[in-house]
């Protein structure tokens, strides 16, 4: 899965405080000035030669002969009026009416002849001071308003919703002058006799006319239009849909109690399992607490195969874990820096006990680490067996209820002490894995055998070797799969779970557990399932799809952990890298190498990925500073940066459950935002007053 596909809905906090400083920008908050800059002064290029500019191109004076109308001269503003202004307004003060006061104020399109007053030509509109007439693309005017002369302030407004133009004189509204205006008009003034001087105010100074109130009226109107928009609603479907959107949103983000209460009060079915919400909530808490290692581990336990199938996601998590190590919040470094290591929740009886042979891909370092204690410092090969081994121990644990728990608890205590080695081994393992890519083996027997075996015994090196090769081969096939066509993986996944569905009841024959596994491994895996079924699944009330299976049993324990987690959610205890502990730093560095290696593997297998490269670079850059928190890359250490990671992970989990990766509500909001952008580009002025944020009530 492409992790960088813009799923972070948290806006970068950089642009927040810029409004208010620029009064012109503040008038038109919905205008994206990168796409459509606002007119801020007269253009020194787009003008007739008889026009002179001064005072930052805001003052216009006439410098021609002014004998007759052939000496008329105009100037346009630098940019056309963006539609996203909704209501655009500028004022012109007549500094001097000159000889005859033949001044025109108005609008014109790009390319209209500048040797003319505004209003005389096609796509040009003006209000003239000498006779008070309005000129609408025509040489002859219509009586419109009063005349204007020295000292008067004339305002020109354009309502981009109704496409009409109005004028004001000295703050008094003169009424609509032109209708059915074309798009992309520029503020324009024209002068014709010597001595005429006018000053423009594009919003840099307060206006004489109260345009703000008019804007509020339009805003109010647009809001009413939206609110009163007729929705074809037969049988209350609309209402149901809205309820559905809200409740899916709550479920998505794990607001368990709220979701329940909402479902109750709207008398909806509440079919999402609480367990699933709670699990996700737990993972979220871990991520948001900066305890990435544990988070990854938990995900692997609760959602086996998820990370294994989603390398980019796993990579992102790992990078984040690295950052959290620097931060000193990740459990691995924390365990070192702060003496009493608490038993991480990962060691509670893993949920993937019901048959998933976990993919021994690079991502499994943590779970691998937890088991290394049994295999002590034995490198590489044993690493692989350990994966299987942990499976074994788990199976044992689950079958022999409480016993397994205590044993695993002790394992982790040791894990922390041996972490350094583990990482190195993992790294090597990864290299090795990739080296061994195409070693076909026959792991079937061994795997099933070890699976079946309850006691914790180091598997003999050769078998483990083969198993490793098998897994790596399967993994490689998986990688190729996802490389070429990611959709494929998804469907595989889903078919897989449905397979499991069927398999749970009777031990059927062809359950393809590891979807990536090629023909060679099918038999073995099917056998694994069989074994599994006999051991644990029977005790469960035959839960279906392997994810939810067994959750209910563990919820209590997880809840206990939750409480513990909440205490230590924040980062940066002593503001020293890895909490200042040398061992932790060691560990961190080792982990960094591991991540780097993973990135290399990813790059080789999946091709270049700029996002991955970037995040890794950013993360490693932290090491270049003594005080990473106050470095240019220090923003990564902000707990706020955990949120996108958290959301990506959450989305991936939900997606693997056939649930939308983003809640419909958020999608709807995102669509709306996009539509508003589209409106802006298509010249629909209503977009100026259709702010999603104002509807949602978020402070802008």
């Amino acid at each position, binding site marked *: 899965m492409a992790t960088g596909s813009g799923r972070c809905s948290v806006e970068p906090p950089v642009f927040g405080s810029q409004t208010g400083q620029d009064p012109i920008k503040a008038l038109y908050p919905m205008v994206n000035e990168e796409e459509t800059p606002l007119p801020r002064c007269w253009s020194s290029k787009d003008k007739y030669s008889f026009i002179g500019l001064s005072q930052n191109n805001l003052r216009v004076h006439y410098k021609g002969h002014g004998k007759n109308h052939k000496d008329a001269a105009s100037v346009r503003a630098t940019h056309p009026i963006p539609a996203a202004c909704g209501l655009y307004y500028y004022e012109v003060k007549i500094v001097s009416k000159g000889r005859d006061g033949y001044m025109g104020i108005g609008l014109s399109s790009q390319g209209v002849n500048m040797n003319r007053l505004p209003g005389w030509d096609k796509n040009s509109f003006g209000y003239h001071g000498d006779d008070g007439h309005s000129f609408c693309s025509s040489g002859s005017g219509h009586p419109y308003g009063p005349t204007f002369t020295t000292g008067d302030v004339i305002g020109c407004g354009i309502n981009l919703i109704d496409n009409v133009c109005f004028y004001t004189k000295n703050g*008094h*509204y*003169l*009424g*609509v002058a032109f209708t059915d205006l074309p798009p992309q008009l520029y503020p324009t003034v024209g002068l014709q006799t010597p001595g005429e001087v006018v000053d423009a105010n594009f919003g840099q100074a307060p206006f004489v006319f*109260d345009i703000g*109130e008019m804007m509020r009226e339009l805003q109010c109107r647009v809001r009413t239009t939206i609110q009163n928009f007729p929705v074809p609603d037969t049988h209350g479907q609309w209402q149901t849909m809205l309820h559905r959107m809200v409740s899916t949103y709550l479920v998505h983000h794990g607001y368990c109690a709220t979701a329940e209460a909402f479902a109750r009060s709207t008398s909806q079915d509440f079919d999402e399992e609480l367990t699933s919400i709670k699990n996700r909530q737990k993972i979220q808490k871990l991520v948001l607490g900066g305890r990435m290692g544990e988070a990854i581990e938990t995900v692997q336990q609760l959602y086996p195969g998820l990370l294994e199938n989603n390398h980019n996601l796993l990579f992102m998590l790992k990078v984040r874990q690295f950052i959290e190590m620097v931060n000193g919040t990740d459990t691995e470094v924390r365990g070192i820096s702060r003496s009493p290591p608490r038993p991480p929740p990962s060691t509670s009886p893993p949920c993937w006990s019901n048959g998933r042979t976990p993919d021994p891909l690079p991502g499994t370092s943590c779970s691998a680490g937890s088991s290394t204690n049994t295999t002590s410092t034995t490198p590489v090969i044993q690493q692989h067996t350990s994966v299987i081994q942990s499976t074994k121990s788990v199976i044992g644990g689950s079958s022999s209820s409480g016993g397994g728990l205590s044993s695993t608890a002790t394992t982790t205590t040791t894990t922390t002490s041996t972490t350094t080695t583990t990482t190195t081994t993992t790294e090597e393992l990864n290299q090795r894995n990739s080296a061994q890519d195409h070693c076909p083996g026959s792991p079937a027997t061994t795997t099933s055998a070890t699976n079946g075996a309850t006691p914790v015994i180091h598997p003999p090196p050769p078998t483990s070797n083969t198993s490793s090769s098998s897994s790596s081969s399967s993994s490689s096939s998986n990688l190729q799969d996802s490389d070429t066509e990611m959709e494929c993986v998804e469907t595989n996944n889903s078919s897989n779970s449905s397979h499991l569905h069927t398999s749970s009841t009777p031990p059927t024959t062809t359950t393809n557990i590891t979807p990536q596994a090629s023909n060679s491994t099918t038999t073995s895996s099917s056998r694994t399932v069989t074994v599994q079924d006999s051991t644990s699944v029977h005790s469960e009330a035959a839960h279906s799809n392997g994810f939810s299976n067994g959750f209910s049993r563990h919820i209590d324990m997880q809840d206990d952990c939750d409480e513990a987690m909440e205490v230590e959610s924040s980062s940066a205890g002593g503001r020293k890298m890895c909490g200042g502990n040398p061992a932790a730093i060691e560990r961190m560095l080792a982990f960094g190498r591991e991540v780097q290696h993973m990135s290399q593997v990813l790059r080789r297998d999946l091709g270049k990925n700029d996002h991955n490269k970037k995040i890794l670079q950013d993360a490693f850059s932290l090491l270049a500073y003594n005080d990473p928190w106050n470095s240019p890359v220090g923003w990564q250490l902000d707990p706020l940066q955990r949120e996108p990671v958290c959301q990506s992970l959450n989305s991936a989990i939900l997606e693997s459950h056939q649930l939308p990766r983003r809640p419909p509500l958020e999608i709807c909001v995102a669509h709306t935002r996009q539509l508003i952008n589209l409106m802006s580009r298509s010249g629909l002025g209503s977009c100026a007053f259709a702010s999603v944020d104002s509807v949602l009530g978020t402070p802008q």
Partner: protein
Amino acid sequence: MDVEHSRAYIDQLYSNDSQKCFQAVSELKFAVIGSVREKGSIIEQGVVVRLLQILRAPDLDVLLKTEVATVLNSLAKGLPEHASALVQAGILPVLWEQLDACTGGGGGGSSSSGGVYTQMLLCCLRSIYRHGCAPPPPAWDHKLLSTLIHHGYHPPSNQECVANILAHACKTCEQQQQLVEAGGADLVACMLCSPVTRVQLPALHCLTAMCYNNERVSNVMATKSYGGKAVPDLLAGLMARDRPREMQLAAATALTFLHRAGALSADDPKIIYKTLQCLVRFCRRDREVWERVEAGNTLAYLTERSIHLQRTAAMTDHLILTMNDYLKDTTPSTPPPTPTPATHPISVSPISCRQYDNPSTWPELMLEAALKVYASLGANDEDIRQRVIKTDGLMNTIVASLSAASPPVQLAAVRCLHSLSRSVQTLRTTFQDHMVWRPLMTVLKTSTNEELVAVSSSTLCNLLLEFSPSKEHILDQGAVEFLCGLTRRPHPGLRLNAVWALMNMAFQAEHRVKMSILHHLGTDQIFRLLSDTDVHILMKTLGLLRNLLSTKAHIDQIMQNHGKEIMQAIILILEGEHCAEVKEQALCILANIADGDVAKAAIMSNEDVLKKLMNYMVIPNVKLQIAATFCISNLIWNVEEGAAERQNKLREMGVYKLLQNLMTTTDTGLFDKVKTALQQFH
């Protein structure tokens, strides 16, 4: 409806068993809610008397009384007829009495049931007053007002009721004053700041009712503030364009009334920018009819006096053209597509309460509003007047409205005509083309509405100006007789206009016209007018005399016939206690008389008058001195027959010497007159 059944609970109402009675009232409540027919039927059956009896009974439970008040409130919410039936049944004194008792008895810590009862009583009062048919509370005694105002502070539901009651009950100048004295201004300021629209809106209406045409109250109101914001600023805030439309309009009306009562100047940005623009905005085509009418009327009132506001309004948002729409909308009398007001009650100020109930009257209301706006706009500025006159079909509409429409529209049409008649150009052209004098004279001769006649006669004054071509036609219509009759009316405004019109008529008029005036008016009436308490009438009568006594031939002829009476009248004025302007006019008449060949004798023969003239020559008032000197110089005018004789007589009386003394004057005007006079002496 099962008659037997309905009768059953009504019988129970009269039960002495309060339990049964309660049951019956409850049933009645459910029967009455939402059914206009049922309300009418219940009122017809005379149940109200019994209900009031229950309210009055001292020993009955508050719960029962509350239920009864609920029923009464429900009845009052029906048709206006229902409400007036309740009033006739004497509901108001009972409610006031109960409200008073509630507040008095409950004391500070009134129980919750008592609170609900009070609330219900207020609701009931509100529902009755909102129909606009109720008289003000008995005597408006201070205690009652204080009680009401006390209730107006606390829960929003009560606030809404109190504001509505006060808004509809406050009608006269005294009531406005009493309300302010009882603390009404503070209450209104407080309610304007309520977050509840249902409170703010009646509070605005209440403010409007309090400030209407009342300078004192308006000044108090304008200086009140709440939460650090002055009332005018609060009003401007409520007028903001994103506020509910009814609120904007109500706030604009309130500010208009504050302005007209002198509490806010026309130059105040809240008036000339905000209020004006708001009202003009509400005149636009896309608004509801009632909004347009209301806005038009208010706008006309706002701009009636200030030329500055008239000029601004005339250029704001094509107002003159917008008003033309009002005229056009009247021509097709198709029923408007908007829902009838019965289904959607309009919340307008009590001043125009119930005005919009009947959609068939809407075109007429529109027409009236537009004519009023035109009248105000064209009052002072000739440019605006010309733009108004050029409005398509306006003159035809005015002429048609004058003769055919209802009195309010006639009045508006005459007002408009009056404004337009101030334009010389219009008098000479448009009015001539449209023969406006015909319907105008018809209105004058037929109408009994004094205001209408006042404005019409005022218009007539302008039409009778000497450069107006209508003058002849009006004379042909028997204007002299009519105007002379008008001078006998008790209404001073009508007398003034009549004399004024006659004065204009007599200016440079033919002899027969003058004789006609004198004939119809009669010297008795002239004397009566000269002794009128209204100095304006006196002045115009003197002006009339002066205009009559112009050109030698006319002077001599008139003096021949009426010389005695006229001299008598002048002496009356000169001897009376009058201001200098009046005496100046009298002296000017003398000067005119002195211009006549024969008439001179009337002065010369009267030594008393001559002495008076000499007296005025030395009085320390230059204008009187000039007038007197001018008269003397007319008397001694050289070329005329018998001049030497008169000169001698006056020289004997010491006039020559007096004139010589006056040569030392610093006033150039007087100096010139004196010099001219001295030159006449040989």
